[in-house]
């Protein structure tokens, strides 16, 4: 087996991985990144609804009452996200667990993250959508909210020169969306980092080594050996030995890797794979009444430009309008008008409904501060996620749905029933959540009794092993997750540079401070 030595091995190339890889490479460390998914760039993307193309990159973890979606490719979720880039509200950092303890470590909150949000926003060219670019769906959503005296804000995006093609989730063919392979990753390579794709880390083993606490990186011995397998060709095994290993495989990938490594890392916290938060997304659809302008679902950027914080303080939710491409919508739910309960999800009534999808249908989605109640179970390499539906969750779901429906009904809309489907296309029973905003399977905490890593991202009891991706984020955020993951990863990177006494790169803490 080939063995590669490096100062720092970064597993993954998504938001959590990109920041430490770039900053440590800029600071002079030898950095290798390994990515399970394929190498992609703008030219590889297609504007298509071909499921074979979509499923090449977008993967899911099924489960009980919760379904997780994520991307596996160079840049992680950044190639396929809708580039919504919002800071988590202060409220998110103030959430408590059942015992009244703060979910977040004491010294990580909105104020301490703000400088890193600034840095992340600069790197990704995040800005508020100009008024004159808001897609019709977003404007109609704003109109409905305004009718009721509610507020709506223009959303923020990581994009430059958006053409409004509406194919953000199949990858931006124009290079407008600020995916990580346009900024962090090439900059990391320019600074000396190497990136290998189609290479999956399988297990992490500590190596027998002694070092002085607080030693600079160059004096730290090789402490971990990571075995990886190529996913193409002969599928050979490759070993990496590293002084520092940073896990950026995301909520599912990082937890799976740590769980697979538990035989070699017996002191790992029992919390690995647990406490997954998921932004409790509740969706409601309706047909607009006559007189409300066309809410064209098929033109303009995928996310329609607006977010409402109206119910954040009172109910812990943000409200968005959603644009759904036919592929996503029809495979996700059977639709029928609520006031026509006998109408089938197929045949003439369904065709009539589908004909209204583009211009007359509006879908609202709420993201909420639901507790981190889901857990990952891995058997024979296959992951499932389980979310017990508690009384508290039932109340949240019912109340959130009531708010969304009330917005629509008071505007004269006709509600559309959405029967969400399972993997065999059968309608799912009971409360079901699905999300691409999963975080927290290896959460940060002040002590090992409550989490997997400390506030610096260091895995408890395993010096030199760090987690910097979404799995370290301990709570739902009520907004999209990527910017917070990236800002937190920048914060962790700044800590690593300090801890390992690396020279300050021109742009890390210097800019963030």
């Amino acid at each position, binding site marked *: 087996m080939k063995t590669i030595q490096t100062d720092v091995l970064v597993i993954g190339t998504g938001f959590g991985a990109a920041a430490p890889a770039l900053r440590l490479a800029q600071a002079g460390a030898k950095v290798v990144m390994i990515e399970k998914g394929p190498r992609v760039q703008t030219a590889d993307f297609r504007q298509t*609804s071909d499921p074979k193309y979509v499923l090449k990159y977008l*993967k899911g973890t099924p489960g009980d009452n919760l379904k997780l*979606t994520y991307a596996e490719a160079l840049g992680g979720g950044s190639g396929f996200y809708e580039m919504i880039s919002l800071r988590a509200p202060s409220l998110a950092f103030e959430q408590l667990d059942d015992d009244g303890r703060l979910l977040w470590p004491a010294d990580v909150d*909105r104020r301490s993250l703000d400088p890193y949000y600034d840095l992340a926003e600069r790197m990704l060219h995040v800005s508020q959508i100009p008024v004159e670019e808001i897609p019709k769906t977003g404007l109609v959503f704003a109109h409905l909210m305004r009718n009721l005296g509610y507020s709506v804000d223009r959303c923020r995006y990581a994009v430059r020169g958006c053409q409004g093609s509406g194919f953000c989730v199949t990858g931006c063919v124009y290079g407008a969306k600020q995916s990580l392979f346009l900024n962090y990753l090439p900059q990391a390579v320019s600074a000396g980092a190497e990136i290998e794709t189609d290479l999956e880390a399988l297990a992490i083993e500590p190596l027998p080594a002694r070092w002085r606490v607080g030693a600079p990186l160059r004096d730290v011995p090789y402490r971990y050996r990571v075995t990886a397998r190529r996913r193409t060709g002969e599928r050979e095994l490759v070993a990496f030995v590293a002084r520092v290993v940073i896990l950026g495989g995301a909520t599912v990938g990082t937890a799976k890797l740590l769980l697979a490594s538990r035989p070699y890392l017996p002191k790992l916290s029992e919390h690995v794979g647990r406490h997954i938060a998921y932004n409790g997304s509740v969706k409601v659809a309706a047909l607009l009444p006559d007189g409300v302008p066309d809410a064209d679902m098929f033109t303009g950027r995928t996310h329609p430009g607006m977010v409402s914080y109206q119910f954040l303080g009172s109910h812990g939710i943000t409200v968005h309008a959603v644009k759904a491409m*036919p*592929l996503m919508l029809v495979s996700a739910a059977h639709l029928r008008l609520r006031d026509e309960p006998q109408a089938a999800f197929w045949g003439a009534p369904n065709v009539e409904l589908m004909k209204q*999808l583009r211009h007359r249908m509006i879908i609202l989605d709420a993201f909420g501060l639901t507790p981190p109640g889901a857990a990952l179970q891995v058997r024979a390499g296959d992951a499932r996620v389980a979310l017990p539906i508690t009384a508290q969750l039932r109340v949240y779901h019912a109340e959130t749905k009531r708010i969304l429906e009330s917005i629509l009904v008071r505007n004269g809309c006709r509600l559309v029933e959405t029967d969400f*489907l399972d*993997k065999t296309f059968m309608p799912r029973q009971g409360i079901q959540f*699905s999300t691409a905003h999963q975080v927290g399977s290896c959460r940060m905490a002040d002590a090992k009794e409550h989490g997997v890593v400390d506030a610096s991202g260091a895995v408890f009891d395993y010096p030199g092993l760090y987690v910097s991706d979404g799995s370290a984020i301990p709570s739902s955020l009520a907004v999209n997750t990527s910017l917070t993951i990236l800002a937190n990863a920048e914060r962790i990177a700044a800590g690593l540079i300090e801890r390992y006494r690396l020279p300050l790169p021109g742009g890390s803490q210097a800019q963030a401070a």
Partner: protein
Amino acid sequence: MQDHISRRLALKHFGLIAAGLAAACTPARVLVNAYPQTFDDDPELVDRVLRAFVTTVIPGAAADDPDLVRALTDPDYPFAQFAAFFAADLTRRGERRFGEPAFEQLTPDQRAAVIRDGLEADATTRKMYNGAVTLAQVAFYAGIYDAQRGCALIGFEGGYHWHPLSEITYPDPALFLAAALTPDGNAA
């Protein structure tokens, strides 16, 4: 392949995509009775029945569209393994109920009744009918075989259709906007 699975049908992976995009598919094994060999031997018969099925599920879809039933027989989607069995089942139910041995000769209402029958049958059959209906809808409305074409019936243009800004938004956006709670789009 059809022959092989006509003996032992394992119904797996109807899946495409679900839940705001999640990938689908779990194995759901079913055993079904044997069906007439002619459905294995005559792909045109299967094609005719499936076309009649899809145009019943989606009235208005063009019966002669070359891609109309492609997803149901596309070897990349596991439903293809059940296409012949499914066509045979539609035919059998149609004949039992209406005495007409050719499903495609039934009236649209009769065909709809047959499909309803399948959707209300035992759990395994329900799953197959649900899968077939949904797969047909996904393929048709999303235009999965032609990125350029989309689906004219619902005004979906497929990919690569550029629209000027004037078509994406309204000329007087400020008229729609509600009060903002934040100066920059980020909640405090």
